[in-house]
């Protein structure tokens, strides 16, 4: 039997994304590259990311990574957006190396969101 292309984390995050959707009245950014699209929407309170939601068009690894990222940053400080845990995402979700570019699009979205919230 050939290996399942998705580990359990990808399956769980893809199947039940708790952070899918948008934040009403929140700041929204869109990254569109490498044939995928990621939209992030954030609500801010007291310098913290009180809510972070995503919408995405792409493969299961990208959608799972978007959910992973929202869960990772939500509730933390805006400044945390400056650091993107690329290696951890690749490892936790066992992202195939040929999909690295798609995760970088997600990183672009996070950085874009960080810049927009700084202003």
């Amino acid at each position, binding site marked *: 039997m050939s290996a399942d292309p998705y580990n359990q984390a990808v399956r769980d995050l*893809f199947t039940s994304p708790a952070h*899918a959707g948008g934040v009403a009245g929140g700041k929204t950014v869109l990254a569109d590259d490498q044939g995928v699209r*990621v939209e992030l929407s954030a609500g801010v309170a007291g310098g913290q990311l009180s809510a972070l939601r995503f*919408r995405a068009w*792409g493969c299961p690894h990208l959608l799972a990574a978007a959910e992973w990222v929202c869960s990772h940053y939500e509730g933390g400080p805006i400044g945390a957006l400056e650091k993107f845990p690329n290696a951890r995402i690749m490892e936790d979700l066992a992202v195939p190396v040929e999909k690295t570019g798609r995760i970088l699009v997600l990183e672009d979205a996070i950085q874009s969101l960080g810049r927009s919230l700084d202003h």
Partner: protein
Amino acid sequence: MAETIYLDYAASTPVDVRVLDRMREVAERNCANPSSTHAAGREAQAIIADAAVQLAGLLNVDPQTLVWTSGATESDNLAIAGGARYRAHRGKHIVTMKTEHKAVTDVFEMLAKEGFDVTWIEADTGGRLSPETFAAALRDDTQFASIMFVNNETGVIQDIEALGTICRERDVLFHVDGAQAVGKLPIDLSNLPVDLLSLTGHKFYGPKGIGALYVADRPGCRVEPILFGGGQQGRLRPGTLPTDLVAGLGMTAKVASTHIESDLEHLRDLRQILWNGIRDIEGVILNGDPDGFPGILNVSVADIEGESLLLAMEPLLVATGSACNSRTQEPSYVLRALGLSDSQAQSAIRFSVGRPTTRDDVEFAAGRYRDAVARLRELAPGAVA
């Protein structure tokens, strides 16, 4: 693994229990090499001869015209490479379609490197090849043509009788890849102008690893071997024959001959239920010919990513593109050749139903497909919260 619903019968089928019984019986009874001249070897030869009669009965041909192979890929290779080379002294122009299976296109590409001149014919947007288009592709030096009976991705059925008639008129050796057609459609080769026909057991409820090539018994219809190493099968395809698998393919043919009409009716019903269950989804299109082989329904839907669609549809076991291509995640070259955009081809799902498929299976599949499309659209940027 959770309980699944198998809707990938165009990729492979379960082995019919009567076929399993026959293979087990032969495997337990006779371990001899059919080339051996002792009693057990002669018995193995007789088993193989009986299987040839059964397969010949399905196709209405002389058993002597059948060559056992390991499957359709080998049969295609033998027919195309062997046939084109046999005719090469008369001309090196050979013809096929862009939408053929890789087992065909890769051999044509190999022959092009050997110096053959290949014409790749385009299908129309429905995937069909008109006799006029085919005739226009033939030249005075055309010696060989290969066209598949039923397309493995779309189910499109070509007019083999009309295309073969043109080949006979122009003295072109005509090969048909029948992997998706044999045992599923009524085929009477005594009345079809086909020189070479490839088939495999596992596409019609037989075992994997066994197939055959039909080589018509008529002047100018021969192929050169592509394997060497023994005198079996008139040196055309040397190698020790697997008696149990051959017997299994014979029984597969016998069973199929009694099921073709009822299977077709069953598949038509299932395909219609499935299509009716999804046809009103916004942006959904049927790829290929609505009147094609009823065991296959290939659909695309706008703005949906194919890999995510496949995962969202679990526990359905279906195919994106063809099974042979599905690990590459590249858009299907067959669907691109029909004029689909990369996006449409990438979102294509091939449902293929079979004898064991039930009405409940396809109703569930239609619902699952609808839900998956709706969920992924909801997840996409621009969706309304």
